[in-house]
């Protein structure tokens, strides 16, 4: 019985890693599409996101089954319950990557020359997702805290971009749609960062048993 439980926990862990890496793929594909201004990128991201949604259901099923059948306690309970919470954040990350790729596919931003700041923001949030998944995989509290800290960088980037975009609206009214799209993309990246922070917090919870509130 116990042996089976351990095996199922291992499976859960593996599925979580898979889902985490799918999210990394999704956000990186979205960033790639943004760099190249490639409308085809949206298809690729959508395909990954569909898979991510399936994985989410699968993992939820697994977690619920484990909770009901094995009635885990202590660390195991924390692992399973935080996995249950983490998948929703991971799924959101996938969705937002999809949204970004969708905006890119509308071709309003493909010739934007001020994308570089946004790319920095995107890369920072992608780093956060990778860091969060890494922290989960290695059960590394320190790595999780680093992710939470990096959120400040992402927020700074976002504030800066927002101000610049506001300025560009005042000076140049022709590219309004482009500016709004860029703002949306930035916001999605910023949200992805927040989800990564949530994941990191759940990692800390599953390691230490202490659930820290949102620091902001």
């Amino acid at each position, binding site marked *: 019985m116990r042996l089976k439980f351990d095996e199922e926990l291992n499976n859960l*862990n593996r599925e979580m*890693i898979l889902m985490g*890496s799918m999210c990394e*793929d999704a956000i990186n594909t979205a960033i790639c599409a943004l760099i190249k201004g490639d409308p085809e990128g949206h298809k690729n991201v959508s395909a990954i996101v569909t898979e991510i949604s399936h994985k989410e259901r699968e993992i939820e099923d697994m977690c619920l089954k484990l909770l009901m059948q094995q009635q885990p306690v202590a660390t195991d309970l924390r692992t399973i319950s935080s996995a249950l919470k983490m998948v929703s954040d991971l799924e959101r990350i996938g969705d937002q990557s999809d949204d970004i790729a969708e905006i890119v596919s509308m071709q309003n931003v493909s010739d934007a020359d001020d994308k570089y700041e946004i790319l920095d923001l995107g890369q920072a949030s992608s780093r956060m997702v990778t860091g969060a998944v890494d922290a989960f*995989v290695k059960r590394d509290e320190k790595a999780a805290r680093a992710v939470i800290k990096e959120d400040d960088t992402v927020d700074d980037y976002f504030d800066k971009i927002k101000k610049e975009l506001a300025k560009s609206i005042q000076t140049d009214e022709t590219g309004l749609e482009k500016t709004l799209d860029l703002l949306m993309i930035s916001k999605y990246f910023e949200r992805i960062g927040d989800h990564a922070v949530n994941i990191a917090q759940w990692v800390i919870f599953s390691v230490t048993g202490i659930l820290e509130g949102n620091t902001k």
Partner: protein
Amino acid sequence: MTRQIFKHMLILITVALLVAFTAVLGILYSYFGVVQEGQVKAEAKLAAQAVEAEGISYLENLDPDTTRVTLVASDGQVIYDSEADASTLENHADRPEIKEALVSGEGMSTRFSGTLLKSFVYCAERLSDGTVLRIAEPRDTALNIAAGMVPFVLMLLIILMVCMWFAARRVAARITEPLNRLDLDHPMENDEYEEISPLLKRIYAQQKQIADEKGRLVRIERDFTAVTQHMAEGLILLDEEGRVLNMNNKAGKLLNAGDVYIGMDILALERREKFREILAGALEEGEHGEAILPYDRLSYQVDVTPVMDGKKVIGTVVLLFDVTERETAEQMRREFTANVSHELKTPLHTISGCAEMLESGGVRPEDQKKFVHLIYTQVQRMITLVQDILYISHLDEGAVDMSCSRIDMCLMADKVIESLSQEAEKKHVGVSLDSDGEVIYYGVARLTESIIFNLIDNAIKYNKEGGEVHVRLRAAAHTITLQVSDNGIGIPEEDQTRIFERFYRVDKSRSREIGGTGLGLAIVKHAAMLQNAQIRLDSQPGRGSTFTVVFPEKATDEAEAAV
């Protein structure tokens, strides 16, 4: 052991008891038979006398308990019987004891009575009136005697069993104690029992075999570990679930595995999409897979090979090896081809365009010369380019004549400056040569010349209007130093490592007007490398660059030996 001994003792004792019991029973049975016969005879005699004296009434008053008394008339008719109604009884004349008594006055017999279903001892006595009196007593059967003895025998058996249990334990302890004390590490040094020496010999042989086998395994494992831990490639062994069985140092370093990795899911260490795909292919389909993955700026080829047992995958071997060089070389080759085609195409476009205009007659006669000149310069450009490409590919293939000769570097530099004087004048760049008299180097003249030429050529080309170029030659104890410095546009720091690459241009937009093929420094690098010379670059954007080439003495030694 105790149980075994006990069991055997029990069987032995039980058999002995049974034999003794049967023997005793046999003896007792016949003894009791004789005694009883005597008794019955005496009783019959007494009864006969009493009947003679008192008549049949005696018999009727007699209270028979176990004894059966029968009075039979001389014709065999039963007159009286103590246990049954006389009239119902059959004629007794044919009974052996009665027959005998009628003849000899007294008869004995022992037989099974059909009437009472028992064995009886009969004794008949003829009375004076011719009737026969018979006394019958039930015979003690062997079973009766045995039944009487059984409780005693059983009790005896129980007592014996208890004794035997203790005895067996003692015996077992006595036998096993020396066995337990055997020194099995040195089985041949024991001499407790001669009986177990074959066993000891076998143990000894097996121990030797085990020790040999163990030694062999340890050696194999040591060799394996030594080989895997020191190999430049990363090696990971996975089980059928994709968990790490083992990995070598290199793989651990690449995957940042830390100390505890055995039993870890490999996806926890490496989860990139490409790797996931080939791993799934190996674990689920049993297919070999490979991919190129970057690790810390280096490219590694990852080979995943399933280990099969029949059709089932029982594990996977993952091999990681560095293919950075191959990848870069490949990329360089690709870039080189693309660059060569591009560089060749540009002048061809100009030439083709001019020629077309001339052919169609759309050029005014006074402009014709200009067009022809354009064609001429572009063709010249192509010729230099093709020459440079050929030269560099010669260098690549090592097809250059490497014979060394005595070179006066000053003279050579002087000649080069002379040949470039026109270019320098055009840009108003002053070129000066500074050396400590004669600087002699033993080396490959053509290579050395191309180094000097290209460096000075670049220093003039990438200079500002009215700039300065200083060529310095210094002969030290073991080295000769060539230094070409200018106060031109300089090279930005991020480009400094790349300028020796083929066709690399710092300022791509201006390269066309400056001319040059983009191969100059690549040739310098190659030529220096072939002569073991070191190139150093110090440059600051806007302030100028200094290229320093240090030719080693070693080349000189070899050259002298050759001369």
